[in-house]
């Protein structure tokens, strides 16, 4: 506060101050989408390495175990392809859907989202970075499962490269679903439960051959995003794969992935500002 009486000031000094309301200060930089996505991805991947490796083993052994069990029931043909493809995608479902739902559920409940919400980072970067990291984290387990399944059931290994498309697309769809479930669940236990249920659905509807299912279960199977990844992968085991169908299945997977990641991003925004 000035001690000089207002009247003693030369005309114009005060008016200039009063006329211009304090100009808003310059804002700090905004974090751009791709660099911040890369930063979140890197951080989440290192997190996963530290804390989630045992869980990846669990996921892989679970799928391998299922294939060994089914070996007694299924011998060759379309059913064997479905079992191997379903078990491989199950690894993705376990990590991307189940673990990611748990992670976001806990982060939201513990107030950890405040950390991201007070940084100038686009919501999509946080969701995509985490989803991407969890999906990449499934790669070794999925590949091991697929190779083991092919050997066990005598399927050709020639087209396993399709996993390079199946993992990211199914991963996007399932991780988006997992993130959305985790962020929308009102309590962390509920997020865990939903993640588990989602994974059980992927297990039952993805691994078991659809021909033996009742109509209603087949409908549910068609609604589950991972199904299309499983179908695309299973088709490539055929002697002469129907690539048009494979592409169509992967396209469905991709579209579902985009939608579920968009929903997850919306859920993040909603959860971040309460």
């Amino acid at each position, binding site marked *: 506060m000035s001690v000089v009486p207002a009247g003693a000031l030369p005309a114009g000094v005060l008016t200039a101050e009063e006329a211009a309301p304090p100009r808003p200060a310059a804002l*700090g930089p905004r*974090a*751009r989408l791709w660099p911040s996505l890369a930063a979140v991805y890197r951080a989440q991947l290192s997190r996963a390495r530290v804390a989630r490796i045992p869980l990846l083993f669990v996921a892989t052994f679970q799928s391998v175990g299922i294939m060994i069990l089914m070996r007694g029931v299924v011998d060759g043909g379309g059913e064997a392809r479905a079992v191997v493809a379903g078990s491989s995608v199950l690894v993705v479902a376990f990590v991307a859907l189940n673990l990611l739902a748990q992670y976001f559920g806990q982060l939201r409940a513990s107030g950890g989202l405040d950390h991201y*919400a007070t940084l100038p980072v686009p919501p999509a970067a946080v969701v995509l970075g985490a989803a991407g990291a969890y999906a990449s984290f499934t790669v070794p387990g999925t590949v091991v499962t697929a190779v083991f399944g092919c050997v066990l059931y005598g399927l050709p290994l020639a087209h396993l490269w399709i996993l390079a498309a199946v993992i990211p697309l199914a991963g996007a769809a399932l991780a988006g679903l997992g993130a959305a479930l985790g962020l929308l669940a009102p309590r962390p236990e509920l997020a865990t439960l939903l993640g588990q249920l989602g994974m059980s659905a992927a297990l039952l509807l993805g691994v078991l051959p659809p021909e033996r299912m009742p109509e209603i279960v087949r409908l549910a199977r068609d609604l589950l995003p991972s199904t299309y990844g499983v179908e695309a992968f299973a088709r490539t085991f055929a002697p002469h794969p129907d690539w048009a169908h494979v592409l169509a299945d992967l396209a469905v997977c991709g579209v579902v992935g985009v939608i579920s990641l968009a929903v997850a991003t919306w859920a993040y925004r909603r959860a971040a500002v309460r």
Partner: protein
Amino acid sequence: MCAVRGLTKTYPAVRGRRGVPATPEVRATDDVALDIGRGEIFGLLGPNGAGKSTLVRQMTGLMRPDSGSVEILGHDIVRHPERASRILAYLGQESSALDDLTVSLAAETTGRLRGLDARQARAERDAVLDELGLTALASRPLRKLSGGQRRLACFAAALVGERPLLVLDEPTTGMDPVARRAVWSAVDRRRAEHGTTVLLVTHNVIEAETVLDRVAVLDRGRVIACDTPNGLKEQVAGEVRVELVWREAAPLHVPEVAALRDRTVESGRRWTLRLAPEEARTVVATVTGGAAFAALDDFTLATPSLEDVYLALGGAVRQGLVKA
């Protein structure tokens, strides 16, 4: 630089469920008005549940108030909550977003998400870790650190990427004196070099007295006083705090001691009294002289602290402020 007017937030009543008792409607902040000047270290002091964190969450754009306005550096945070993240750095009470990362990656990632490019983020990370003495712990995951070290690592992450306003919610919880000193000297340096403003949430009265320029005392969502720590203490300058610690039990057979009993706050063997200086002198003479002395273990006479201010101002919660 920061003006808060009429900020009000009410948590709705929660209906009880099995195992969960019903809670009535709670007014977490009640018509709060504050002005924080540039370069100031401004404190929010109050016991747990006074509404400090709720107030801070509204000022950082994390929570929408029911009514009222928050303006920081000319930006309306209620209308544009997303701008808060470009003006301030926030250290919340929770570290769960960073727990699995190494100290170094936590700081670097936070810097990148604050808009720094990779090279800047690494340079600032190294500078901040060095400044806070965390370099030796840089490659350890936060989860493996002690509570105080983890808090310091989170503080480091908050400092990467310069911001004109630091909002720190109980930053020194669990820290040893060395870490505390590192925190306050880092804050002081930023204040001297960049005019950084600090909004500090604390329930630690000793810390409040030593580091704050001004303090707002919160009680049940209302600001019951706002002044410099000394200014506040002058409000209760007419009082002296006398603490008496008895060996086993208070010698109530001594009439002078028995007479004090209804004016004292008892906590086990410890009696705390707030008295006028004259009275205090008489009390000390009584307990150190006569029959009461045999039962006395220790006594202290002290000028009022911010805790006394809080109680004198009518703070309702008798527990919850920490003296450490």
